[in-house]
């Protein structure tokens, strides 16, 4: 554990990518096979099942440290991280420990079959052996949420450095359904045969937002333009007579969408398709919110199958007849893709609509109308582009329509977490409903660190009431809020819910009387909802 906790601490101490890669590669060179495997698992969000509730951890830590629970809670609000709060509050260890990471994970998993009293003894015993740094990691393993700024990309680079293997190959191997219980480092990363697992997806190719004018990209005819959809980016795999549906977040979601199962009858074995899972009814996409509600259900009821049916809007072809197609040019992949999709029922799969593109100016005009087509904008893909791994510049760009905006008044502020711990960084905004301010959204991002520092200081001086980590503040500050979409909501007093709200600008030039109204938001809802 010392080794892994040390890695964690060191990773935390640098913002420099190269330094992180070096640290990770160095760690892989030293660590045991099982520790390497678990490290990969933890950094790719494959943590052991939660075996103990955090409320119990709080109680036991309170008990052992003689710090009352209320004070522990208050401390947590200020620290912004429960794993860290518990680690800091507990008394110093009285025993040594020599177990490595995987042994501690086994120790944690032993609790799965324990009664509460046994768990308490088990956890307290661990706390007596682990120092503050190790305890922090120990808590993170239990509670999940390893955020150390180790991206998949970084992990892949470090592994490549450690093994000498090609990065794309490693990125592919890290995908899919593996678990440390069922594989070894050797098998996962080093073995010759990568495809024993039928369900194994390819890494997605992700685009950056276009920042320059499209004219900079060259001839419009070299570029395929298609509508960008707001669903779940997914990968459909048909192999061995079975179908597997993966989300971009690497979740296997096959069972959530049983209506897509029949596709196996239309699509031959050895086919992998990249597309957007989209709620789609009567020829038009539904709101993302509808899809979200459906996913939120434990069981897919008949009602949802009927009310929120889904299709796959097919973007690209990654595998065909069992062959990896990613090195073929987009134009060829697209041609085969169209022939495959043509054989599938419209109600299950459609090819993403390609937009005519012989003039950047005309395309720009069309983009402005994206919302009328229920789309978020356009995707631009170079026709001769290969299918790359991860987020890459150059060949694919997303060219989203400008966000909708509203000027709103801040009325609540809340302390943030992580890097924003103990800083009032999360705000609730309101618009005018007659003489009253009605809250309609929260937003967490968009300000620079310097602006956030100023708002934080302002919040502390302009607090009206405190409710735990939340404060109501004097309604004085106006912000421009940007968002991608707007929907009806029965859960909110305002009657609306926004998609991807964020702060675009602190309008220091505006008085609260100049903020927008609820009527305006309902007009937007009418138009785009």
């Amino acid at each position, binding site marked *: 554990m010392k080794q892994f906790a040390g890695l964690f601490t060191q990773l*935390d*101490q*640098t*913002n420099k990518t190269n330094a992180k890669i070096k640290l990770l590669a160095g760690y892989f060179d030293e660590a045991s096979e099982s520790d390497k495997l678990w490290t990969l698992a933890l950094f790719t969000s494959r943590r052991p099942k939660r075996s103990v509730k955090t409320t119990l951890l709080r109680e036991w830590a309170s008990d052992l*440290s003689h*710090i*009352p629970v209320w*004070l*522990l809670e*208050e*401390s947590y609000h*200020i*620290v*912004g*991280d429960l794993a*860290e*709060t518990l680690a*800091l*509050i507990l008394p110093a260890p009285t025993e040594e420990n020599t177990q490595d990471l995987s042994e501690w994970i086994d120790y944690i998993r032993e609790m799965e079959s324990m009664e509460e009293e046994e768990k308490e003894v088990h956890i307290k015993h661990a706390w007596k052996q682990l120092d503050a740094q190790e305890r922090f990691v120990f808590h993170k393993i239990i509670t999940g949420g390893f955020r150390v700024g180790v991206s998949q990309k970084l992990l892949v680079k470090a592994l490549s450095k450690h093994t000498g293997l090609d990065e794309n190959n490693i990125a592919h191997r890290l995908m899919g359904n593996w678990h440390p219980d069922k594989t070894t480092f050797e098998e996962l990363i080093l073995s010759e045969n990568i495809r024993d697992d039928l369900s194994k997806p390819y890494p997605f190719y992700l685009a950056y937002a276009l920042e320059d004018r499209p004219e900079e990209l060259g001839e419009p005819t070299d570029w395929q333009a298609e509508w960008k959809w707001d669903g779940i980016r997914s990968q459909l795999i048909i192999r061995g007579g079975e179908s597997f549906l993966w989300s971009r977040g690497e979740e296997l979601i096959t069972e959530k969408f049983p209506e897509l199962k029949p596709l196996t009858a239309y699509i031959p074995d050895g086919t992998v398709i990249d597309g957007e899972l989209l709620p789609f009814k009567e020829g038009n996409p539904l709101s993302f919110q509808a899809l979200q509600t459906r996913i939120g259900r434990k069981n897919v009821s008949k009602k949802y199958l009927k009310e929120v049916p889904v299709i796959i809007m097919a973007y690209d072809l990654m595998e065909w007849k069992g062959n990896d197609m990613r090195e073929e040019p987009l134009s060829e992949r697209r041609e085969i893709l169209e022939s495959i999709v043509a054989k599938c029922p419209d109600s299950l799969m459609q090819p993403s609509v390609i937009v005519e593109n012989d003039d950047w100016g005309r395309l720009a005009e069309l983009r402005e109308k994206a919302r009328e087509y229920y789309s978020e904008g356009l995707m631009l893909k170079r026709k001769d582009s290969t299918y790359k791994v991860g987020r890459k510049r150059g060949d694919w760009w997303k060219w989203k329509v400008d966000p909708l905006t509203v000027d709103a008044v801040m009325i609540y502020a809340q302390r943030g*977490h*992580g*890097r*924003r*711990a*103990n*800083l009032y960084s999360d705000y609730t905004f309101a618009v005018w409903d007659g003489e009253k301010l009605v809250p309609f959204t929260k937003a967490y991002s968009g300000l620079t*660190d310097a602006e956030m*520092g*100023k708002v*934080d*200081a302002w919040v*502390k*001086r302009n*607090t009206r009431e405190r409710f735990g980590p939340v404060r109501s503040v004097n309604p004085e500050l106006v912000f421009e809020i940007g968002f991608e979409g707007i929907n009806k909501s029965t859960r909110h007093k305002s009657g609306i819910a926004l998609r991807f709200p964020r702060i675009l600008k602190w309008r220091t030039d505006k008085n609260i009387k100049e903020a927008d109204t609820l009527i305006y938001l309902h007009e937007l809802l009418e138009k785009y909802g």
Partner: protein
Amino acid sequence: MAGHSLLTFSSKGIYCEQADVYIDPWKQVDKAIITHAHSDHARWGMKHYLAHTSSEPIMRLRLGKDISLQTLAYGESVHINGVAFSLHPAGHIIGSSQVRVAYQGEVWVVSGDYKIQDDGVATPYEPVTCHAFITESTFGLPVYTWPKQAIVMDQINSWWADNASQNVASLIIAYSLGKAQRVLAHLDTSIGPIFSHGAVANTNEAYQAFGISVRDTQRIIGQGPDKHTKKDFRKAIIIAPPSVIGSPWTRRLQPFSLGIASGWMALRGTRRRRAADRGFVLSDHADWKGLNEAIQATGAERVYATHGYTNLFAKWLNDHTSVKAEVVETLFSGEGEEQRDATAEEKGKGEEI
């Protein structure tokens, strides 16, 4: 508080009516006792000052050569209208004092800022028995536990050595009064040369001129023929105040690694937010355990918490110890803790931290 209390909390600061004396006042008064020379405690414009002998050089440097200043050694008393005032080591910085106020058998102590750990530079903290104790509570939360100074200084020295081996300068951020001298005293001079930012050098020199020993460093020269250049800093550590973070001043040091020595670095969120390469947990204030030990050691029945997480700390004392506690609003409060934190961050100085 009742009007007949020995010390009261007025809009100008802590006040002793019987002697007509203020302690660390923030508005202009006739007689002020100063716990230590940090700018939020030793303010400009008092008619007469009383402070510890070792606070003199800094107070004259910052408040003016000609201030009317009477000094005391630790344990020495002055009597004003029947009230005995004496100063006792607070361990915060050189010359920092707790103020003991005694009148007709009643004893109050004003802690000023203090820490329990002996830092090898300031005279170590000594508990003073009293009936009522006015304590700071800057770090009055159980998540604040300081590592031993020796461990932190090892971390700083090995960070410096590591940087030096790669020809990267080490810029360590420490308040120019107190933290800078503390860090300086424990640096391993075999690693490389030590440079001081002007604000730190001024403080060091004021001490030296007064006969207080501070290790020699090179003052960074920014102009003229003797100007330091980047190559002078390759193996060096540079001690500078927080105001230089992100300023053009640091360009002369590039490439450099940025380290911050502060108690606030105990929290991961703060460390990450400050975007320093390294955060070293080194504070001149008492940690949670230190505050509680200090309060117990005074034997005080009543405690007044100022600065920091006062509300939470007072609630803790009231609900879970035999001490009766109240919150005292100071100039910085309403919201002591955070305000002070915020003010410090805004100004980029806040030397009290």
